[in-house]
C-alpha cells in the first residue's frame, strides 16, 4: 500500500475531525444539558453556511468576517426556536420531542430550498481557498487547517466554559438535577435557552466553514446531523467531553474508507451508519 496515500488520508481525517467535533459538541450540549435530541441541529449548520454565502454575494463580506455576524444570528435563531417551540415539549415523551425537532429541520431545509434552490452554492473568488502546503508529498490546505484550528479552539473553549465559569457550572447543575438547580436559585428555563442558543451558534460557525471548504446545497444539514449523531453515539449520549476523541475516530474512519476502499467516496455516509450500528450493538452486548 502507498504510505503517502495512507498518511494523506489520516491527515485529511484529522483536519475534518475539528469541524465534526464543533458541530457534534453543540448537539451533545443540547442532549446533555436540556435532554433534547435535536434532529434540526444540522440545519443550524446549513443556515450558517447559506447566511455566509448570502453575506458574501450581497455585501461582499468575506466569510472570515461573516463569522462575527453569523454567530450572533444563529444564537438568536436558536433562542427563538427554543422559546417558541422546544420549551413547551420539555416534559413531553421523547418521541414527541424528536418529531418536533425533525419537523423544525424539514421546515428550515425547505425554506432554504425556496430561497436558494437546490444547486450547490460556491463562495467564488476568495484567494486563500487555493493556498496549500506540501509536506513530504502530503498536501494540507490552508482552509481545512484553519477550520481545524478554529474548531479546536471553540470546542476547548466550550469545555473550559463548562468547567470553570459560573454559566458552565449552572449548565452542569441544570443537567444533573433540574429540581436542585431551581432550588439554588437558577431559572432553569433561562439556562436551557442559553444552552440551546449556544448549540445553534456553534453549528452556525461550522456552517460558515463548510461554505468555504465545499459548495453546499440546502440538504447539507442532514448529512451533518447524521455525522454528529454518529459522533455523539460513539462518545456516549450527553457526554460532552468525549466528543473530541469520538470526532477524531469517526472522521479518520470516514477518510480511510473514502481513500483506501475502491469507490470509497460513495461510502462516506455508510461509514457513519456502520459506526452507529457497531457501537450500539456492542453496548447492548455489554449491558445484556
Amino acid at each position, binding site marked *: 500500500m502507498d504510505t503517502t496515500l495512507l498518511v494523506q488520508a489520516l491527515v485529511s481525517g484529522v483536519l475534518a475531525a475539528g469541524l465534526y467535533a464543533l458541530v457534534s459538541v453543540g448537539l451533545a450540549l443540547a442532549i446533555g444539558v436540556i435532554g433534547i435530541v435535536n434532529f434540526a441541529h444540522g440545519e443550524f449548520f446549513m443556515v450558517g453556511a447559506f447566511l455566509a454565502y448570502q453575506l458574501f454575494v450581497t455585501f461582499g463580506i468575506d466569510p472570515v468576517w461573516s463569522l462575527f455576524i453569523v454567530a450572533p444570528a444563529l444564537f438568536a435563531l436558536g433562542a427563538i426556536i427554543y422559546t417558541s417551540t422546544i420549551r413547551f415539549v420539555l416534559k413531553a415523551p421523547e418521541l414527541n420531542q424528536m418529531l418536533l425537532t425533525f419537523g423544525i429541520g424539514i421546515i428550515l431545509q425547505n425554506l432554504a430550498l425556496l430561497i436558494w434552490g437546490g444547486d450547490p452554492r460556491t463562495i467564488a473568488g476568495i484567494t486563500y481557498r487555493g493556498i496549500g502546503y506540501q509536506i513530504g508529498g502530503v498536501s494540507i490546505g490552508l482552509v481545512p487547517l484553519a477550520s481545524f484550528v478554529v474548531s479546536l479552539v471553540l470546542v476547548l473553549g466550550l469545555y473550559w466554559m463548562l468547567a470553570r465559569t*459560573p454559566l458552565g*457550572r*449552572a449548565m*452542569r*447543575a441544570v443537567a*444533573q*438535577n433540574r*429540581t*436542585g*438547580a*431551581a*432550588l*439554588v*436559585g*437558577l*431559572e*432553569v428555563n433561562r439556562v436551557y435557552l442559553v444552552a440551546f442558543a449556544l448549540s445553534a451558534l456553534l453549528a452556525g460557525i461550522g456552517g460558515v466553514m463548510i461554505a468555504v471548504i465545499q459548495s453546499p446545497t440546502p440538504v447539507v444539514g442532514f448529512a451533518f446531523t447524521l455525522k454528529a449523531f454518529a459522533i455523539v453515539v460513539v462518545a456516549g449520549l450527553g457526554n460532552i467531553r468525549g466528543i473530541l476523541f469520538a470526532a477524531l475516530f469517526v472522521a479518520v474512519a470516514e477518510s480511510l474508507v473514502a481513500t483506501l476502499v475502491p469507490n470509497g467516496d460513495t461510502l462516506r455516509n455508510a461509514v457513519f451508519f456502520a459506526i452507529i450500528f457497531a457501537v450500539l450493538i456492542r453496548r447492548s452486548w455489554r449491558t445484556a
Partner: protein
Amino acid sequence: MTSVQARATGALEVRGLEAGYGKIQVLWGIDLDVAEGEFVAIIGANGAGKTTLLRTLSGLIAPRGGSVSAFGRPLRGLSAARVVRSGVGHVPEGRQLFPLMSVRENLDAGADYLPAARARAGRNRAFVYELFPRLLERERQLAGTLSGGERQMVAIGRALMSDPRLLLVDEPSLGLAPALSASVFAALEQINADGVSVVLVEQNVHQSLKLADHAVVLETGEVVLRGTGSELLSHPRVREAYLSL
C-alpha cells in the same frame, strides 16, 4: 407569643392554599403560620400532601388558590429561583443533589447564584462544616458516591448556603440509620437555635414533635389538628394513628 405578634413578625403565612398535579387536587385550603425563629412540624400519613405543601411553598409547584407570604412578602406566582431569593430554603424530598459535582461544589452551588448569600458563603460554609464535620472530610468526593446520610447532610448544607431565614425540610430521616437520623435532628435543632425558622415534614413523628414549637397534622390535604408539639404528642388521635400507642 400572641398570634398578633406572630403575624407581625411572621416567617410564613399561608392562607387557603390549594395545589395539585394535573387533574388531581392534593391540598384543600391549608392555613399555616410560622413565627420567626419558630420550629413547626407537619405530620401525616403517606399521601396526606406534606411534600406537595413544601413544594408549593418553595415555588416548585404553582398553587391553584390561596396565598403564601414569607417575611411579609407575597410568594405566590414566584418561581422556585425567586422564592429562594426571599430567604426560603428547601431541603427537598430525594435530596436532589448534583451527583457529578463534589461535596464542595454542591454546597457552593447553594450560594453561587444568590448575591446576598454569596457574600456570606464563607461564614455559612464554616457553619455547615461545624454541623457536619464529615462533609469537610469528604469535600472533594462526588456527591453521587456518598452514603444516604451524607447526601442528606449535603442537601441540608446546600440549603443553608443560600442563607435562608426559613428552612423547609422534607423527610430528612428517610432511609437513615437511627444514629444518623438523630444527628440530622440535632443539626436541625442547632440551625433553629441559630435563628432560622424551620418547617419540618417527617414520618418520624415522635422525634419531630419533641423538637417542634408547633405542629399540624395533615390528612388528605387538610389540616385536621393543630397544637404545640407536646400537646400533639399526648393527643389520643396522634398517639393512635402515628405513634402506634
